Each structure stands twice: as structure tokens, then as C-alpha cells.
């Protein structure tokens, strides 16, 4: 019986350790290049820009673990948030009502994905590409194409709520209150993935769908629940996005799928399914946000930021492929002395 080597444990089950290392290197480099980087105001703004991507990435993580890929979550996010804002109008309705309404819409759209994928057994990428275009079309055609600046009262208020305000270099650095629900969601998804049978069924299905079916997992039901849950997470993310940007624009979010997927893959989730963790995903999101933030700080034009995200995605996938090759190396039966002695 072998005990895990300490180095292997540091590396983490999904290369989380490597991501931490890269993260540290980037932070050190950036601090040297521009000491402003480590200021509270910059750090808090990185956290703020990571909030929505983290929520969306949690959904993507679950899909990727199950061996699928979802590109419709941004469409669902903006659909749920924008339609909620339109229906409620600038007047009343508390935050809870808004949240419930958005979640119901998100769940309904996610359910469409789930039903098509699980019953027709079509490739998830194709299905979600299709539904994504469909959701976007329906949103623009039937709900509205206008930019809305007048948010419902509760949202407008939440947009400026902070948990922590620290004076830093003349201005005040604010940490947005949404860090609390986002952290709670992370813990919730971690718990579901590691401590519920449904969570384990996602890993099992991602590892070998046929084996999962033979083991008696209710795979159809699990997939329907999965895509519905992803719809709900997307709705929450969309609502947060609208709240944080203080306006509702139906063209927002759609197009940023790749950034989120890149973050999840970078965080160690395997695009072939069966592998991934919440910790890795959160680290991946931070890494991407920090790199984007750094590119801005050192004055690199924004067109290059897209290229950077693409390069990062390739890097993440490349590292996975390489380490897969390495682990397949074989251990021989004998120590050398034994062969000689025989």
C-alpha cells in the first residue's frame, strides 16, 4: 500500500496547486511591475469583477464534470435577469421576489436544455448552441431590446451595498456585499458535488456514461436536474450582473462563455468529463480576472485580452493532455538489484 507523497498532495487532485503557483507568480510579477496592484482598491475590484464569473463558472463546472459542455448559460443569465427587470418595472417588489422570479425563469430555460439532452441524447454542445441562439432571439423579439437604466428599487439599493470599506490612498476601497452569497454558493456546490449521490452521479456519468447506467444511477433524471440547476445558477449570476452594472442590457454577458469555460478548465476540470473541483474553479476564475486586470494595468489594448484568454484556455488544456500522458507511464515489476540477483 502506498501513501500519498506530500508533493502530490500539494499539487492537488486536479492540479489546484499548480494554479495557486501560477497565481502567485502573476501576483508577484504584477506587484513588481506596478505596486498599485496590491492596493485594497485594486484587489477589491478584482474580487468584484470575479463575482458573476464565479457563479456562472459553478454551473459550467457541474456540466463539465458530467462530461458535457454548456454554452447557453450566458443567454439564460441575461434572459432571466432582463425579463425579471422588465416585468417588475422600476417600482416595488423586494429582493426575494426578484430572485425567485429570475430563478423560475432560469430553471424553465435550463429544463429545456435538460429535456432535450437527456431524452434525445444529442451532443450537449450542439443542443446548447441551438437553445442559446433561441433564448437570445426570444428575449430580443418578445421581451425587449432596450437598455434599461431604471432598475427596481431593491436592486438599485443592493448595487451600492458593501460589507467592508477600507480607506486606501485617498479613496475608499469597497468590498461588495455579494461576496457573501457567492461564497455561500461555492460552499453549497462543493457540498453537493462531494456529499450527495446526485453529485457523485455527475462524476460517475462523466467518467463512463454506460457504467453509470449499469450501476443503476438514474442518469436521465440526474441530467434534467443538472441542466435545471445550471439554469438557476445562471439566473442568479445574471441578476447579480445587472445589479452590479446598475443597468439591464439584453446584449450583455452573451459572448463571454469562453472566458468562463476557460476559467473552469484552467482550474483543473477535464473537458473529457469526470474531473473538476470548486476550489480549482474559483482559482481559475481569479487567475483569469487577475490576468485581464493586469493587462489593463500595464496598458495592453483590450483586443489582446481576448487573445490572452484564448491562449490561457489552450494552455490549460495542454497541461491536462501532458499530465494525462505522464500518469499513464508504467511501473515495472522489479527493483534493479532483484533482476541482477536472479
Amino acid at each position, binding site marked *: *500500500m502506498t501513501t500519498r507523497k506530500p508533493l502530490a498532495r500539494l499539487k492537488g487532485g486536479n492540479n489546484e496547486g499548480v494554479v495557486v503557483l501560477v497565481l502567485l507568480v502573476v501576483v508577484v510579477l504584477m506587484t513588481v511591475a506596478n505596486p498599485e496592484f496590491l492596493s485594497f482598491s485594486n484587489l477589491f475590484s478584482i474580487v468584484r469583477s470575479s463575482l458573476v464569473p464565479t457563479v456562472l463558472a459553478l454551473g459550467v463546472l457541474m456540466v463539465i464534470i458530467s462530461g458535457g459542455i454548456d454554452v447557453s448559460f450566458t443567454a439564460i443569465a441575461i434572459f432571466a435577469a432582463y425579463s425579471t427587470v422588465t416585468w417588475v418595472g422600476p417600482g416595488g417588489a423586494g429582493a426575494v421576489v426578484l430572485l425567485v422570479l429570475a430563478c423560475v425563469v432560469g430553471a424553465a430555460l435550463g429544463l429545456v436544455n435538460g429535456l432535450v439532452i437527456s431524452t434525445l441524447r444529442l451532443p450537449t454542445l450542439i443542443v446548447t448552441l441551438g437553445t442559446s441562439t433561441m433564448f437570445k432571439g426570444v428575449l430580443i423579439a418578445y421581451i425587449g431590446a432596450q437598455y434599461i437604466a431604471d432598475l427596481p428599487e431593491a436592486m438599485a439599493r443592493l448595487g451600492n451595498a458593501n460589507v467592508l470599506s477600507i480607506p486606501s490612498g485617498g479613496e475608499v476601497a469597497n468590498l461588495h456585499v455579494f461576496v457573501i452569497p457567492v461564497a455561500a454558493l461555492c460552499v453549497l456546490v462543493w457540498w453537493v458535488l462531494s456529499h450527495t449521490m446526485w453529485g*457523485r452521479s455527475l462524476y460517475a456519468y462523466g467518467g*463512463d456514461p454506460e457504467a*453509470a447506467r449499469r450501476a443503476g444511477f438514474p442518469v436521465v433524471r440526474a441530467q434534467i436536474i443538472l441542466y435545471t440547476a445550471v439554469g438557476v445558477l445562471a439566473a442568479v449570476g445574471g441578476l447579480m450582473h445587472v445589479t452590479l452594472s446598475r443597468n439591464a442590457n439584453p446584449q450583455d454577458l452573451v459572448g463571454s462563455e469562453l472566458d468562463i469555460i476557460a476559467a473552469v478548465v484552467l482550474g483543473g476540470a477535464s473537458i473529457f468529463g469526470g474531473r473538476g473541483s470548486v476550489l480549482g474553479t474559483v482559482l481559475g476564475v481569479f487567475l483569469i480576472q487577475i490576468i485581464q486586470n493586469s493587462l489593463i494595468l500595464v496598458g495592453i489594448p483590450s483586443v489582446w485580452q481576448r487573445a490572452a484568454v484564448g491562449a490561457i484556455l489552450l494552455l490549460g488544456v495542454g497541461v491536462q493532455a501532458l499530465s494525462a500522458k505522464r500518469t499513464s507511464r508504467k511501473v515495472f515489476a522489479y527493483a534493479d538489484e532483484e533482476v541482477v540477483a536472479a
Partner: protein
Amino acid sequence: MSSEPSAATAPVLEARHIVKTYGGVTALDDVTFEARAGHVHCLAGENGCGKSTLIKIISGVERPDSGSIVIDGEEYGHLTPAEAIRAGVQVIYQDFSLFPNLSVAENIVLTAQVADRKRLFSAGSTRPRAQAIVDELGLDIDLDARVESLSVANRQLTAICRALISDAKVIFMDEPTTALTRTEVSSLFALVERLRERNVALVFVTHKLEEALQVSQDLTILRSGSLVVTGPASDFDRRSVTKHMTGRDVIESRHLNDYDATAAPRLSVEGLTLSGAFRDVSFEVRPGEILGVTGLLGSGRSEIVESLFGIYPAGSGTVRVDGRQVRLHSITDAIDAGFGYVPSDRLTEGLCLDKSIADNTISASLDRHRRWGIFTDRGKVASTIDRFFTALRIKAPDVSAPVRSLSGGNAQRVVLAKWLANDPRVLMLNGPTVGVDVGSKEEILDILRAQATRGMSIVVVSDDVPELVSVCHRVLVVRRGRVTHEIAGDDVTAPAIESGLAA
């Protein structure tokens, strides 16, 4: 052998008049089968006769076209996998059906928790429960390792542990011993005895007939999806089983092709050494000669050919093909030098399961099917595929069927076709007939003899002694990484090889 009269115990499981077709292929035609508590029931038959299909229907993985299943007096038209597991049916699948991305411990306990309709996964109790069953079997497996990093033998053991952990009433074992060493097989059989005492019904599928007759009390033989005969195992012997399976008498005697023993060697290996695996291995093979390499599992016998094929490049030594020294640093080098290799773990190393028979057949020899070195010559490709499909008698509706839909033994023929299509100068095979039925085994050996007669040099790595005796001109015995015996000509007999292995 049989301990009590079969009639005394009522069957715990009955499959009645099962019919199953895939497209136009009838996999099962009105098959009735029963398993009794405390009995081992051997299910035998040629490759593709429907053994695995019958098991999949009883375990709810496939739906029968008609017929019914009765477990403990309760009748089902068809079952879902979860219902079957809850009813007490456990299966060790031919392809294991494990989760490669999960740990050994989780693989062992997860299915039992699914069957219990658990909502929460108790991560804490996973390891102790898995440890308990591993200890009971006296195994040494790293419970924290991911299944994908395990050897085939350890995967098989993991699948066995998984089937044993829940209190099953019926356990199906679909070729559970293909990758196991002799000691592991005997501890499995000891366990089978213990399960029998606990009144579990066992169903055993194997192509190793001695094994089958040794452990079972009942025997059922299928041929082309139909029931041929069923009865107490004591009524059968090796010959009658073979006859029922194939419908003819199979001659398994020593029968060698002719070759020119004075010709210059095709392959000569000198002082080949791979640190940790084998040391100072030297031998020659002439054109048309079939050389056997044997040894216990882990002796280094497989590593020698894997090293020649560039999978684990040797540290030192020289290899000559037709007198010319060759460099074997990678698989590409080996193929260029004229080597072909049929690996032992065909499901993961040799085939692309979701691709068609045609694609797999041609996958190693695309370079041989080009016009002007660029364009694929479609006509030539089609004729090669057809030739091997017919010559190897692969049982499938047509060449476009995915390999996954083939029976285990037929998949093995596709691997063989893949390497024969490349027409190598030296063909090396590792366990070429593992999981192949007696009749087809002779056919495959005949194909090897025919290829050798055409001038190919063949190296067969195997632990199947009768097979070595039947086909090899010469046999090398490997022990702890060294060639300890060389048996040639008329000295190649089963006792000689056995004593070489034991010495």
C-alpha cells in the same frame, strides 16, 4: 464437484424464453436459463453466441424483445439496472464497467449506495467498507488510486470486490479471470466456495474449459444465440463441451508449419536490457518461425515485446531485423522497422471502440494504402478490409458496425486484422487468444501458421501452455526478467514448459 442433486434447490433466478435482436442480428433466440442458490452455473459457448447479452438482459442493462425474468418468485417483463441490483443481481462485466476517474474505494462502494437509494454520499464510510472486502479477499490494492492508473488485473479485482460488497443473491462473472495470476484465480475460487456456502447463486462465463468444469455444478451451452444443452456439469468433459459449443470436433494437437531452419535470422536480439524489467535477453527468430515466450504474470515476458515495439525503449542491447541494426525508441520506429504488436489489453490499447470495424482494421496501415504517398486509395482500402473481415470470420452484420457492439472474442479478431493488414515482418502477439473460444482459438492459430508459412516471423507471448505447444517451434521461459529456459523442437511439451515455469 456437484454436492447435492440439482432438483433439491429451487432456482433463485429464471430467465424464460428470452429473445433479443440487434437490428437484423439475433443475439438470443428463445433462451431459458436458471440459477440455483449455492450452485455455480457455467455459461459456455463460442464468441458472439450471446452469453454477455443474456447477462445484460438479466441485469437490466438491455431490454429483451420478449420473454421474462423471475427473481425470487417475482416476475418481470424487463428490469432497470437499479431494480436488478435491488433484487440481488450483481455482475462483473466483461469490460469491468468501472469509473476510471474515481478512486478504487469509491468504485467498490458506490453502486451499493445507489441501490440503497441513498441521497447523501457517506464519504467517511467509503474507505473502511472497501478495506473490509479487500482484506476479506486478501488483496493488495491501493484504495486511494484512481482506477485509470490500475493494471488490468487490479481493475478486474476491483470489479470483483464491487460485486461482492452488497449481499447479492446471484452473482454473474463474465470472464472474471482473463487477467489474473494463478494465485489470484485460486483465491477467487476459494471465495466462490465460501459464497456457495452462504447460498449465493453464481454464474460463471469463461473460455478456459478446465476452469469451468472445475468450479461449476451446472452447465449451459449456447450456440449462435440458441440453447444447445443444459445439465449437471459432471455429465460433461472437455471434449463434449467443445463439441456442443462448436458443433464439431476440434483438434488441439501440436501442428507446426514448415520453415527453413537454416535461413538467416529475420530478427536477432542481443543483450537487450531494460532496467527494472528484464536483463540480457538474446534470441533469434527466422522467417516462418513461430517463437513462444512464456513466464508468470509479472516475469517480464510482456515487457520484452513491448520494449521491442518501442513502448518502453530498452536501455541497452542491439536489435537487428534482416541483418540491419534498428533503433527502437518509439512505436513509429518499431513499425518502420517492420514490427507489429497485438497487445494484451485489447479494449484499451488496441482498439478505438466507437469506430467501425473497417476504420479499426485500416488504422495501423494507412501508409500502405496510399497512391503517390499522398492520397488514400479507397479501392485498396475496401479490398483489404473485406479480405480480413472474411478471412478472420469476424461475426458482425457488416464492416461498418462499431467495435463496441462486437462480442469480446470478435473484438480480438479486429485487433489481429489491424496488424495483419500492415503486413509486418515480425508480428508479436501478447495473449492472442485470451477470451477466445476453443473453436476460434484453433482458427486464430491457423491464421498465424498461414502467415508464418508466407514468411512472417511470429512471437507469441502467452501463459496458455496448450496453445504454445500447439503452435510454437520454440519456447523461451522468462523468470524474474531473465530467459531461463529455451525449449525447442520435439522437447516442446506441456510438462516441459510447466517445469520451466515452476523451476
